[in-house]
């Protein structure tokens, strides 16, 4: 049930902002500070989410194989690997480390 509530809210919210952007007259939301904030918000959210999903196990901070996987993904990104390759590198390194360390 909880998942359905979250999904319904996300669907409505995400579609709503897309339609709003296409529909409002130009200039209404075009204030520089609003625009800066809109480009920086995803940066903050994605950075926090990356860190949490790498170092968190529920409410605890942990250091496990995922950290190695993410480090490998970062190297792949620096080498300009395509999106799917970056994901694959993270998955393979994480799995390999778990297999080795048991």
């Amino acid at each position, binding site marked *: 049930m909880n998942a*359905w509530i979250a999904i319904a809210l996300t669907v409505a919210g995400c579609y709503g902002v*897309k339609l709003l952007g296409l529909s409002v007259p130009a200039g209404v939301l075009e204030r520089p500070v609003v625009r800066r904030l809109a480009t920086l918000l995803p*940066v903050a959210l994605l950075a926090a989410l990356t860190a949490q999903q790498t170092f968190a196990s529920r409410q605890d901070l942990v250091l496990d194989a995922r950290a190695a996987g993410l480090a490998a993904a970062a190297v792949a990104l620096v080498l300009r690997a395509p999106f799917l390759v970056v994901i694959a590198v*993270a998955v393979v390194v994480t799995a390999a480390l778990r297999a080795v360390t048991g």
Partner: protein
Amino acid sequence: MAQETAPPLEEAPPSPDADRRAIRGALGVGIAVGLSGFAFGVTAAGSGISLTQTCLLSLLVFTGSSQFALVGALAAGGNPFTAAAGAFFLGVRNCFYGLRLAPLLRLPARVRPLAAQWVIDETTAVTISQPTRRTARIGFVVTGLTLYVLWNLTTLLGALGASALGDPAAWGLDAAGPASFLALLAPMLRTGTERAVAGLAVLLGLGFLPVLPAGVPVLVAALAAPAVLYAQGRRTGRKEVRR
């Protein structure tokens, strides 16, 4: 600086060559990114939501980072409202993409509700790089359609594949979510401002994780954006006063 105000699109006569170039570019982006629905399908299946829910997210939300954030928050046991809030804030940037695209595409009012679903990072990047309104529309439609079809197809395949594999952690699939966030984030870290925001957000997101309910620390971390902007505003404000 000239890029700040979009140049008025010339109504140049249609050229098959320009059309082909637009289609080729759009297909490249659409196919490459469309295939990453597979990563979402796998991640969503590992987070404990059903196959129907996974596919509905790709069909109806159709903006990758929000989808990954939502399933991540649900997997962490967050309450539905904070989970949806995180996903929503990530989706807000599409509003600003819409603002940029509207004058380029000049869509009739009745098509807007349909076109709106395709207003995302990739379609925007392809559309704003087009020289004419005709190729902008071609770029938007071809990118949007290719990405929409592939993203949904690969979401389904990923979710089905993941449930066939069993425990996602044994295959390292729990690293797919954070790796995709990192891949989405990397191209955004262009200047010191973005890096400062990212660094502060990591500290806030991890620092508050043990003490606040699941899902809330991400929202606290979002405050890194206004905080850095404010600090910057004060610095430049002081400089101007000195002058």
